[in-house]
């Protein structure tokens, strides 16, 4: 058995149009692994209880899926890159790719809309961006 370490992961980020504009065009991603400090995807199922009077237990039925990605990146303050990626872009489509590669690369894709984004500036600390991307959104079918 061999465990996967962070150094074998690649994080790619692409920003699309604002959701209110409708179905987004294809989003191109850029490798931001050098900036990214954490990437936490979560997927879950929504259930409906279809229990009948004859059932002694819940009968939960999956009716939809949802999820979110929490991501934290260092702010790139280099000349030409002084704009935040997520902050002030709430409501925009985002495509995220996580490439897991120790041997053959496995790419996990997440497409959603920026729900929250923060950019704390704290004395004596590096400036970072934190964002939560909502998966399962209007104008985009699926979570990927």
């Amino acid at each position, binding site marked *: 058995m061999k465990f996967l370490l*962070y150094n074998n992961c690649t*994080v790619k980020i692409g920003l699309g149009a604002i959701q209110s504009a409708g179905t987004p065009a294809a989003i191109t991603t850029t490798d931001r*692994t*050098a900036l*990214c*400090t954490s990437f936490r995807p979560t997927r879950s199922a929504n259930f409906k209880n279809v229990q009948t009077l004859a059932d002694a237990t819940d009968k939960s039925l999956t009716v939809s899926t949802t999820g979110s990605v929490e991501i934290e990146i*260092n702010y790139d303050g280099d000349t030409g890159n002084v704009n935040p990626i997520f902050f002030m872009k709430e409501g925009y489509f985002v495509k995220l790719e996580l490439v897991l590669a120790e041997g053959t690369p496995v790419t996990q894709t997440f497409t959603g809309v920026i729900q929250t984004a923060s950019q704390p500036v704290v004395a*004596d600390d590096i400036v970072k961006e934190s964002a939560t991307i909502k998966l399962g959104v209007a104008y985009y079918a699926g979570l990927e």
Partner: protein
Amino acid sequence: MLFDPAVIEPDIYTVLTADATLSDLLAVDNLPNGYQQGVYAHISPETDPVSRKPPRFPLIVFTREGSFGADQITIGKTRVISTPYYRINIYGMSSGAMSMVQVQSIANRVAELLDGRYVTSTNPCILYKRESTDMVYEDQGGGRVVFCATLLYKTTAQVIS
């Protein structure tokens, strides 16, 4: 950045030796500026390389004193920040009527030079932030007292990639 002390320590030395005001304060008793090196890394030597004599007070010794924490990295293995501490000690001696004015004046000047200093011409970029200060003294008998003003700096060394 492979080894940040090799960048930070020359910067501290250069800043402290290049300042004419600080040189004036270190050259007491009508001695000419630069009569001795006066600023030393890690330890005061037995023989000053300029004067060829034992170092005289006042003098400055700076040394690394650990780190604030581990180096920060990203998922991409990029080392982003390291935060080594540097202690600047200013030693002085007084005989008879005790006075810390000499050491205090030098410490003030060091603080003016280093507090908030941000160097972008090196890799890593270096930001100096003073963490704390202290003043200690030792009675050596015979009316002689050695003073030490100490300034602790947290340096933030940022890798340019």
